[in-house]
């Protein structure tokens, strides 16, 4: 147990056993998937039509925004070239599905249906959904992997306030499904409703992904730090499909990449 907790030696044992257990996990998640499927197949025509119109409208809106974004991206690249700064490259993503399996009720973890065999996944790989950051992989097995969600009490996420760039570390609060921002002084410039994005420090999560929104700021002068609670943007309980991200790590000319240790871990 100590070996598993402190080192990496028993990883292969776990991976081997996980292969045995995977068919069972898959079978267990079949009923839940079947319910979803029947819900989709038996949806009425009106509902589908309504959904279709909504999606079309949303698609149009998003597309117009995307045109603007392409322009801004090009401009950004150009400006960065002028500044001789590092370039940001697009990140590679892979879609994975969640298996409906219950793990330990006191930890916030999920199982996904992608593993070593599908692609070069690595430990610590970030996981996002359509709304924000979800978590990172903690165990990669041949056919499945386990991810720790950002609301797990053992998970810490480096963030910054989108409005002013204030940096903070968000730690999960467990079963409440919220995050707590640690060690922010009472006079920190943070307000209810502030958007928190990943800061890219710590070399696990790529910078700039939306992560959470501030829900509550409690400044009590008798305490050394403010109590700041944030709500994750990702639909941690509802998402069925997630994206695995391969962060592109920037390199500055003449400076060794501070995140190079994170790359070496990936095979």
């Amino acid at each position, binding site marked *: 147990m100590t070996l598993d907790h402190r080192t990496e030696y028993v990883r292969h044992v776990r991976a081997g056993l996980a292969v045995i257990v995977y068919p*069972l996990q898959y079978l267990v998640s079949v009923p839940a998937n079947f319910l979803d499927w029947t819900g989709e197949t038996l949806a009425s025509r009106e509902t589908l039509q309504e959904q279709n119109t909504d999606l079309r409208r949303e698609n149009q809106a998003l597309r117009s925004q995307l045109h603007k974004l392409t322009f801004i991206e090009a401009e950004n690249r150009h400006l960065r070239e002028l500044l001789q700064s590092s370039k940001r490259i697009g990140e590679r993503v892979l879609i994975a599905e969640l298996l409906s399996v*219950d793990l330990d009720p006191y930890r916030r973890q999920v199982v996904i249906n992608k593993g070593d065999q599908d692609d070069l996944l690595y430990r610590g790989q970030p996981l996002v959904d359509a709304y924000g950051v979800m978590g990172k992989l903690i165990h990669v097995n041949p056919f499945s992997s386990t991810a720790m969600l950002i609301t797990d009490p053992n998970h810490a996420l480096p963030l910054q306030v989108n409005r002013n760039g204030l940096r903070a570390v968000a730690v999960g609060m467990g079963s409440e499904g919220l995050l707590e921002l640690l060690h922010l002084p009472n006079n920190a410039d943070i307000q209810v409703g502030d958007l928190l994005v990943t800061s890219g420090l710590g070399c696990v999560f790529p910078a700039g992904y939306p992560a959470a929104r501030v829900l509550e700021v409690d400044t009590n002068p008798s305490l050394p730090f403010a109590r700041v609670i944030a709500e994750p943007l990702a639909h941690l309980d509802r998402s069925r499909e997630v994206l695995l991200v391969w962060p592109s790590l920037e390199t500055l000319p003449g400076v060794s990449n501070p995140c190079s240790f994170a790359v070496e871990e990936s095979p």
Partner: protein
Amino acid sequence: MRFSQHRGGWLITFSFVLALALSIIPLPAMLELLRPEWMAMVLIYWCMAVPSRIGVSIGWLVGLLLDVSRDALLGQYALAFALVAFLTLHLHQRLRVFPIWQQALSVGVLIMLECLVVLWIKGLTGQSPGFWKMMIPAFTSLLVWPVIYLLLRHVRRTYNVS
């Protein structure tokens, strides 16, 4: 010739597989905390019924499988289940003659011990959810035990597992 005395090994395996499925099947958040320790109960039953076949090593193996499927620390349930199997082997002659409610109480205590071991290991690795919360499965297992016992006994007698 030795193997001809043992029968119904596949049934024992199947009961463990079913218990493993029950212990990872998705449940609503409230019921999740109440989930009985299916694996431990099945292990206790077989330790009690066929102590010559199911023992500490099987308990350890089964616990290891639960570790992996719940993604716990490798060896956490294995240690707890080995302890439960050891105690059941020691007590199996007494457990067999107990009336069913008394048996349920003893099983409750055994599973409480198992939860306690898991709680200690969790405490050591810094993720303790609190004592009473961890003990809920022991109480629900106590309530479910008569059903499991009667069901598995019926299965054992029908298929003559020995």
